[in-house]
């Protein structure tokens, strides 16, 4: 808990402060609160049962892979809901930050709950039970959880944030790849819609926690900053090493490992950027399959490089919904 005590030594009195949203210390708190609450959703809003015929077209090993991947994602959301965001709350600098983190914590519970909705809609109970058992026995999944939990147990607020951003912006993606892959082949498209809602939430979480990380970093000496940076890159490489093995164990049988790894590199770079660091993996290692990018963002494969000179002269943006009351012309 971060109920802030206002210590006035002279009087030895302390007051418990009520949060005041009309006095904002960090405008990002309000901005992100508005974004997250505006994005609120529940799995019931997605018509998952429309995927039942599509699920039946998957081969048994593809079904098993999908259930395992979603169980792995459930585990990460469980950590983030019950431990990660709660630990970060204890480090909150403003009361508004604590409130935003409480939203993040709850949405992680919604995400974890969503996978169970997918299971109950599409899968047989024994198959799901098998996957939960698998998740407890899979050494790479357990190792990645242990590496994150170890950081959450430290006293260092910045190291906790690094671990949290890596979980939100990197570790989920070996799992998110699969529903994007199915969606690109017109399979499980409603499930993919639900996963896209999760991806959007995680992007805001990674951005916000990364932003708070950078505000904390500003207050440190150059030496300490370097130490944290070294820690972050070491942890990323350690997580990546394990993630590559996890990916092989899951995806080798369907021949997708190399494709997934490119997606991992691309997202590892974005996780580093959320912390304010430069990308680590070179551009050629991050050439994500266009079908996956396009499943993630419908216009991601459109040419938005006027400079490259490819294609027609140039594209003027399509008319899109704007808040016309704000524009004078």
């Amino acid at each position, binding site marked *: 808990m971060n109920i802030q005590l206002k210590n006035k030594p002279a009087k030895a009195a302390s007051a418990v402060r009520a949060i005041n949203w009309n006095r904002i210390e*960090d405008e990002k708190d309000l901005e992100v609160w508005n974004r997250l609450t505006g994005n609120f959703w529940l799995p019931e809003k997605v018509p998952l049962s429309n995927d039942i015929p599509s699920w039946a077209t998957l081969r048994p090993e593809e079904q098993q892979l999908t259930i395992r991947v979603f169980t792995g994602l459930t585990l990460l959301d469980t950590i983030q809901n019950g431990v990660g965001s709660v630990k970060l709350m204890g480090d909150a600098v403003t009361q508004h930050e604590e409130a935003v983190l409480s939203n993040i914590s709850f949405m992680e519970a919604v995400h974890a709950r969503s996978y169970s909705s997918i299971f109950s809609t599409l899968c047989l109970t024994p198959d799901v039970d098998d996957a939960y058992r698998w998740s407890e026995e899979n050494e790479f999944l357990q190792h990645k959880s242990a590496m994150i939990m170890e950081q959450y147990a430290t006293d260092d607020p910045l190291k906790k944030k690094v671990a949290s951003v890596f979980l939100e912006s990197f570790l989920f993606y070996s799992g998110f790849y699969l529903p994007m892959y199915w969606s690109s082949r017109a399979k499980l498209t409603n499930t993919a819609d639900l996963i896209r809602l999760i991806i959007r939430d995680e992007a805001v979480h990674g951005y916000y926690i990364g932003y708070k990380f950078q505000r904390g970093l500003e207050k440190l000496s150059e030496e300490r900053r370097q130490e944290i940076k070294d820690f972050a890159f070491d942890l990323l490489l350690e997580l990546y090493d394990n993630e590559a093995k996890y990916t092989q164990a899951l995806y080798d049988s369907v021949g997708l490992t190399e494709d997934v790894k490119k997606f991992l590199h691309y997202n590892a770079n974005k996780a580093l*950027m959320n912390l304010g660091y430069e990308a680590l993996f070179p551009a050629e290692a991050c050439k994500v399959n266009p079908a996956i990018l396009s499943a993630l963002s419908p216009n991601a494969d459109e040419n938005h490089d006027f400079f490259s000179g490819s294609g027609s002269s140039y594209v003027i943006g399509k008319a899109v919904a704007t808040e016309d009351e704000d524009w004078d012309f």
Partner: protein
Amino acid sequence: MGEIVYFSSRSENTHRFVEKLRLAARRIPSGQAEAFHASSPYVLIIPTYSGEGGKGAVPKQVIRFLNDADNRKNIRGVIAAGNSNFGATFGIAGDIISAKCQVPYLYRFELLGTEEDVVNVRHGLERFWTRPPSKHR
């Protein structure tokens, strides 16, 4: 070469990208944006804020800046940052400004941009400013 006019929130993502370009650039301030003017040709670089369906995607300060007809007449192109995780609204601030101001959406990058993005934009802008007069503008 024309200049770069850009906006960056306190996250400093767009600011970091612009710094890496090492080209003449001025930042639209967070407060008192009305006092900021662009009286010669420029390319605008801005982040996309992610709202439901693209609502609130263009930062208010940028809208205020563009509401000034003198500023608006000098815009020649827009470059926008975003995040592909936001799906259909990825980099949509660039689409909105491109449509509103009838200028090309020159380039889109994610977060603070990669080295590849920096090279593409730096070289692209050099060619853009030295290209023969276009009938489009």
